[in-house]
């Protein structure tokens, strides 16, 4: 490998970038399945480069997307090592932590950069490494090779690369990725051209905190359920949806009162918040400084912990026979109704602070029968050690048979089954009983009002437990009493609609009393009461 002083300066050179066919195939299932993942991967590259600031510009034209960071930068030698043949990455050669800020390294095979080929034909890469006096400029042309992707060669050419070293005397260090010739489909998606007759909710010109507030208000008013689907004639645009998804997955801080509004009560959550803030990783996305958008509870009717929602925190460590360890911590949030927006339902797994995929709504294939309560649940697991080997190359899914993954999954399922959902069931039952009691009192009040309005004086309502009563309901105008015989066989037949039947029979008895037993009059009064009831 040539030393920096042997590098050619100010002279354009050429190479072809190759990628292992199997990698390309696997990538197409994960990173390539969502264009926003490309930006996420590039942000993760910046994080791995010890950047503290990332600036992304896409709006308003979506003509180019530029990503600049103040990370350690890359020189020609490193660029070639990482990108000439993409099948491995040197990122982890230096150890599991970055050199300067000692961040846990995320990257595995340098695929973040080539994921750009999904959304554009051309990438300009400019990087200046700390304390070196050359900057590297490379122009990567994917366009020419896109049609040839289907070839079955072991390694496929994916781009022409022209690069050169240019003297730069400044002490700066940075990397710029300029994606140009963006795919028309991608531009159309971001511009919401596919949505016809829908008013796009646009958050232009407001801060991330304000966006989060607006979303919360809309959810509270029943105007928003899902980031990607219209509610009525209004929907959040694809650009904003992409930004929110990215914000949720990269290592940016939480909103001040997120992820749980009263998180001060929970040590593990406070610890997580402090750790993420300490990363000092700022992402400026079109002037908006990203924060993790999750903040619960997010609707007015969910307010009281214990009654409306519960939070469970955990911190675990497991040793494996092969000497490896699995360390993780996190929380589960469960509320008494479905979580909105739907994108926030599920569990998100972050390895070294970076999300793998997004929320898994099925909680890693939860096997028990309480699936009804999964949409009421959200959670985050921060894996501090282990699990990385279980991550598939698409960086969005896991190898289901890996012992770390199985351990984590079983822990999660056990927590949900034996703790979270038991509590949900108890909460549900007690709420049902409370509701039943309330309904009973309310029913009684309404019945008394009805009787008073018909007979002109107040009635008492009594329940009789005789087993063989003559009638199911009786009105005694002398004693001013309404008696309901709870064990009359007629109620056995309509257990589910017992209250309904009681009401009908009370109306019948009122009609009978007021008609003096005259059949025609009884019928008129009864039908009239039923109509008004």
């Amino acid at each position: 490998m040539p030393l920096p002083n042997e590098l050619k300066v100010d002279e354009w050179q050429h190479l072809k970038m190759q990628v292992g066919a199997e990698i390309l195939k696997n990538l197409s299932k994960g990173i390539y399945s969502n264009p926003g993942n490309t930006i996420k991967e590039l942000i993760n590259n910046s994080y791995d480069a010890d950047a503290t600031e990332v600036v992304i510009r896409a709006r308003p034209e979506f003509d180019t997307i530029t990503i600049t960071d103040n990370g350690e930068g890359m020189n020609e030698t490193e660029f070639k090592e990482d990108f000439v043949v993409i099948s491995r990455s040197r990122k982890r050669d230096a150890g599991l932590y970055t050199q300067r800020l000692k961040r846990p390294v995320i990257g595995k095979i340098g695929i973040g950069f080539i994921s750009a080929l999904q959304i554009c034909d051309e990438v300009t890469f400019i990087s200046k490494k700390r304390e070196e006096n050359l900057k590297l400029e490379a122009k990567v042309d994917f366009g020419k090779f896109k049609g040839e992707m289907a070839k079955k060669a072991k390694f496929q050419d994916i781009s022409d690369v022209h690069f050169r070293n240019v003297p730069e005397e400044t002490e700066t260090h940075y990397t710029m990725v300029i994606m140009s010739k963006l795919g028309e489909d991608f531009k159309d998606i971001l511009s919401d051209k596919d949505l016809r007759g829908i008013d796009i909710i646009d958050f232009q010109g407001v801060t991330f905190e304000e966006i989060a507030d607006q979303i919360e208000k809309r959810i509270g008013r029943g105007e928003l359920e899902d980031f990607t689907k219209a509610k009525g004639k209004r929907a959040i645009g694809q650009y904003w949806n992409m930004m929110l998804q990215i914000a949720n997955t990269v290592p940016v801080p939480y909103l001040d009162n997120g992820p749980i509004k009263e998180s001060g009560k929970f040590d593990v959550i406070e610890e997580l918040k402090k750790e993420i803030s300490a990363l000092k990783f700022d992402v400026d996305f079109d002037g908006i400084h990203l924060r993790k958008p999750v903040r619960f509870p997010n609707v007015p009717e969910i307010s009281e912990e214990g009654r409306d929602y519960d939070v469970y925190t955990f911190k675990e460590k497991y040793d494996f026979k092969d000497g490896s360890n699995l360390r993780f911590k996190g929380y589960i949030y469960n509320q008494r109704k479905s979580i909105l927006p739907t994108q926030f339902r599920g569990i998100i797994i972050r390895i070294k602070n970076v999300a793998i995929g997004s929320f898994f709504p099925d909680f890693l294939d939860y096997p028990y029968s309480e699936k009804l309560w999964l949409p009421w649940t959200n959670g985050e697991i921060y894996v501090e050690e282990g699990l990385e080997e279980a991550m598939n190359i698409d960086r969005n899914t896991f190898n289901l048979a890996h012992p770390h993954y199985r351990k984590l999954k079983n822990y999660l399922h056990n927590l949900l089954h034996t703790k979270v959902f038991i509590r949900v069931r108890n909460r549900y039952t007690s709420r049902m009983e409370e509701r039943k009691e309330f309904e009973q009192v309310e029913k009684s009040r309404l019945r008394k009002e009805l009787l008073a309005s018909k007979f002109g004086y107040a009635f008492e309502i009594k329940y009789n437990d005789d087993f063989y009563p003559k009638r199911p309901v009786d009105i005694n105008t002398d004693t001013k009493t309404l008696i309901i015989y709870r064990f009359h066989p007629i109620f056995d037949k309509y257990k589910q609609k017992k209250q309904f039947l009681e009401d009908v029979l009370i109306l019948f008895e009122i009609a009978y009393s007021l008609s003096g037993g005259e059949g025609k009059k009884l019928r008129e009064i009864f039908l009239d009461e039923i109509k008004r009831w």
Partner: protein
Amino acid sequence: MSSSINSYSQSQDREAFNNPEKWFVRYKWLKHARRRLDKVSKGFVKFFTLPGVECFDIRLFKLHSLLKTTATGFDPESLAYCEEIAERYTRIGNLLANARRFNGSYESLVGVGISGFTARADQWFPFDVINLDFSGPGFNQPGRNTSRTAEALLKTFKLQKSKRSSFSLFITIPANPVWNDESGKKQLEQCLRTNLTDNETQEFTRAFNDKYPQVQQGPSPAYQTMPYHEFLLITVPKLVIKYGLDEWFVVVCEEKLTYVGEGHNTRMVTFCFECEYVGLPNGYGGQPQTLQLHQYSENVANILRTPNTDVNQVFASHLKLRRKYDSIRDEARKCYGTKL
């Protein structure tokens, strides 16, 4: 291989555009942009510029509330720019969130060399203030009869006319005969010669011949027989006024400035034009042509009446003023790399 990636030193780039002479010029731009703001009713100007990496003109306009901003940057309606070099384009974008931007030259933006306009230009125009601060060579296009820059100016008037919109136009170019190629110089020369023989501009001809007798008498072109920056200070306004006339604009050249920026060798020339649309709403004329021609003759004659401001001389004779702009430069250094 495309040569669109050019090397440049960031620190040099910053200093290149941060000198007291340039700040003097920027404050002239500010004066005219404020006048334009008074003429438009929306409370901000739609501004197009070719900013350097530190976007000093945008900083100045923002400071004086000429632009519409939001909590996250600019309102795209208020600010647009283009920059050809990818690295500069990215650096500028990092400072200016949500402004409209184009990674290419002004000439490609407006559609030089194609019939009609580009879709992007059609969408972006009109602007209230257009600042064409060509830091590189102007009027250069080897092998062509007309300069791309001149054609871009003509397209600018056509685009503004298509939206029936008056505007302020600032043009800055280096007065370096080596940089400005023969075709561009010939085009300006042609424009000058036409006026010198035009009955409608006799007053201009008289004043010009009095000042530059050698041009009329000698066989050599004017750009060889008179100081080159003076040649530009006369011919560029003439060309712009002519283009304006063709597209139903009354164009007045309000300022003509020349300067050599501190630490530089190249003399620059800057012009401030006020361009008022006098055509009908359908874009096909308005004032009687005789009246417009009269205004044209007046405005051409005014080119010589409008004094050339040599910023270096102004500073030499007003040291206090020089110190004021020195301190503005020093203040501007504190803004390097900060987002707007």
